[in-house]
């Protein structure tokens, strides 16, 4: 029965060729440093899953954001665990993505033919930091509010267009409900959508060129 079902699916999707293309590949001998990329991916998925749970209770308005998180922490079953994982996961993700970048730099894996993979990786690093920056405001506590005030001020110090950037980030001259709404939209829609797209290309390029080998004396 299962075999028949599998054959039916295989005929339509091409499971065998998918398996050959993505999983059944030869690779250079690797070590634990090679797991950082997949660890970043795992953290992204984990942040996505816990973030979706949090979005069920979270309200992006200055009147209710703080209280809704208070409710997640004390009122919702295992809400504290989900939020705890999301909170610590964000720090760990920045760290892991950064170390992944350093590893690729040290082994010079960004060189031919993987230049584009590196370029997209830098985009992913910046967007991960952007996720951290936008997510930091959402709890709407003192730390979040003032750190974002200073953070957007720094963005506003750009010559000529600084004022525009500041107003675009804050939705006005001051931090307000609009800022929270904006950061929320960026945190759960704009940046994740871009991240998913870039991760897709990143993975495609990795499968196309294969994981790079550790350099030896002759390389």
């Amino acid at each position, binding site marked *: 029965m299962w075999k028949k079902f599998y054959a039916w699916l295989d005929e339509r999707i091409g499971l065998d060729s998918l398996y050959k293309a993505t*999983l059944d*590949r*030869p*690779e*250079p*001998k*690797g070590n634990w440093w*090679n*797991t*950082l990329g*997949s*660890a970043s991916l*795992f*953290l992204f998925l*984990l942040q996505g899953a816990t973030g979706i749970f949090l979005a069920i209770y979270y309200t992006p308005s*200055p009147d209710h954001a*703080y209280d809704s998180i*208070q409710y997640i*922490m*004390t009122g919702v079953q295992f809400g*504290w*665990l989900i*939020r*705890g994982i999301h*909170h*610590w996961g964000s*720090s*760990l993700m920045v760290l892991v993505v*950064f170390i992944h970048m350093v590893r690729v*730099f*040290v082994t*010079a894996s960004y*060189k*031919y033919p*993987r*230049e584009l993979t*590196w370029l997209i990786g*830098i985009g992913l690093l910046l967007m991960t*930091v952007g996720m951290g*920056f936008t997510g*930091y405001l959402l*709890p*709407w*506590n*003192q*730390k979040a*509010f*003032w*750190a974002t005030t200073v*953070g957007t001020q*720094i963005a506003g*110090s*750009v*010559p000529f267009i*600084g004022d525009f950037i500041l107003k675009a980030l804050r939705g006005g001259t001051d*931090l307000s409900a609009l800022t929270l709404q904006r950061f929320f939209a960026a945190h759960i829609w704009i940046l994740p959508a871009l991240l998913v797209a870039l991760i897709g290309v990143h993975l495609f390029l990795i499968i196309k060129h294969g*994981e790079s*080998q550790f*350099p030896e004396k002759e*390389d």
Partner: protein
Amino acid sequence: MKEEQKKTIKERYEQSLQKGERFWPDSIFKDAIMALGIFLLLVLLATFIGVPVEPKADPSDSSYVPRPEWYFLFLFKFLAIYGQIPILGKIEWLATVIIPIIYIGLLTVLPFIDRSPKRYYGKRVFAIGIMAIIIVSMVSLTLISNIPTTSGEGLYIAGILQTVGGLVVPLAAYILLALMNFAFKKTPAKAMVWTTVVTIVLMIGLTAGTMLLAPSVASEEVEVATTLEDQINAGQDLYSVQCVECHGDDGSVTTITGVEGLEGKVISPINGRDILYTLNDASMAEVIAYGRPDAGMNPFGKAYNPEGLTKSEIDYIVIFMRYAWDDRFEMPPMKPLFPALAEGEVPSYDVHIAPIVKRYCVSCHRAGKDNNNFLMTSYEEVLTTGDNAENNLLPGSLDGYLLTVIQGTEILDPATGEVLIQQMPPTKLMKQDVIDAFILWIMNGMPRTAEEARALSTIPEATPTP
């Protein structure tokens, strides 16, 4: 890149594949273990450390010292040190825009600058050296981010060390390495390795020196009530200090008495349906924060008064009012104000008296109120301040002024016979068990800590039953 170079690279990669492993299951296995480890680590962090609790955002509290998320701290510190440079430091956008753009830009176009096909570490000393110095400076800037950059005046050695370690040394090293790599092409790789190592050791040393010289400023811990019970308690304490004078301890006052400037003012009681049913939580919080000038209510929020209440504190007062007086809310079971005293147990200031004083006395007995200069916000103040300090608390005696007035007897001025001190608290005496705790505390010499009180206690040792 020439075609034959590309070909060699491809050939070498093919060779390494021959000696390699399979993605499935070899690599996936390691990836899965890594993912599991990360997941367990996060669960442990969430369970045992949790998420630090912060008070609610308060746009009017401009005294709050902002600190970014930890992975931006190095940038924060860099900006602070950069701001110390004369002249250049005043051009803020150089540090906030140009320098980060240079770093990120170089990182982005790295594969197009570094076009040599060489990949072995020994052939890339320049690149790896620069990267190592960047990472070490990021880590050390993060470590010293707590330490103030200037002391405001005079020679501040920790500040100089910071500038040298965080700015001068790395900058000198970049220039030196760049010179070695581009200008003197014959420089042996060893010289560059040594430059990098010496730079890193110097930077670590300077960072350690800074940290030793200037212990970082202890960050202030803010207590945040998270459970309903804590919030009601916090609200009641705040109400007792800020509101009781005018509104009375049960909110029923209709004519203010004994308050300077508001004497005889007619106000509406705040414990009835008129207020509690017509105002929602947000409106009540706004009345407390911004006041009601036409009705005589003063503003208590930080917007009007830097010493005022924060958003979170106002929320606690509203929660307390709801649960205490609104008949649609039911007060959850609350812990008593202080733990009940056993037979022979001596109360201590820390455990028993401090909460009582906060609830019943501090409202008037703090700076700026009419209280004969008797302040009660700390143990030392309770013992030593006041115009009648020598008569207030007499250890081991029932005749001190304090014990007399809290039991409802006035103190008369021996010279004129006028009332010197009325009964305390002025409108309604405290409950008998509270007064008893006060008497026990003073009769036993006013111990401060729980340990001191325990030493004085005469609780009969539990005799083992045979």
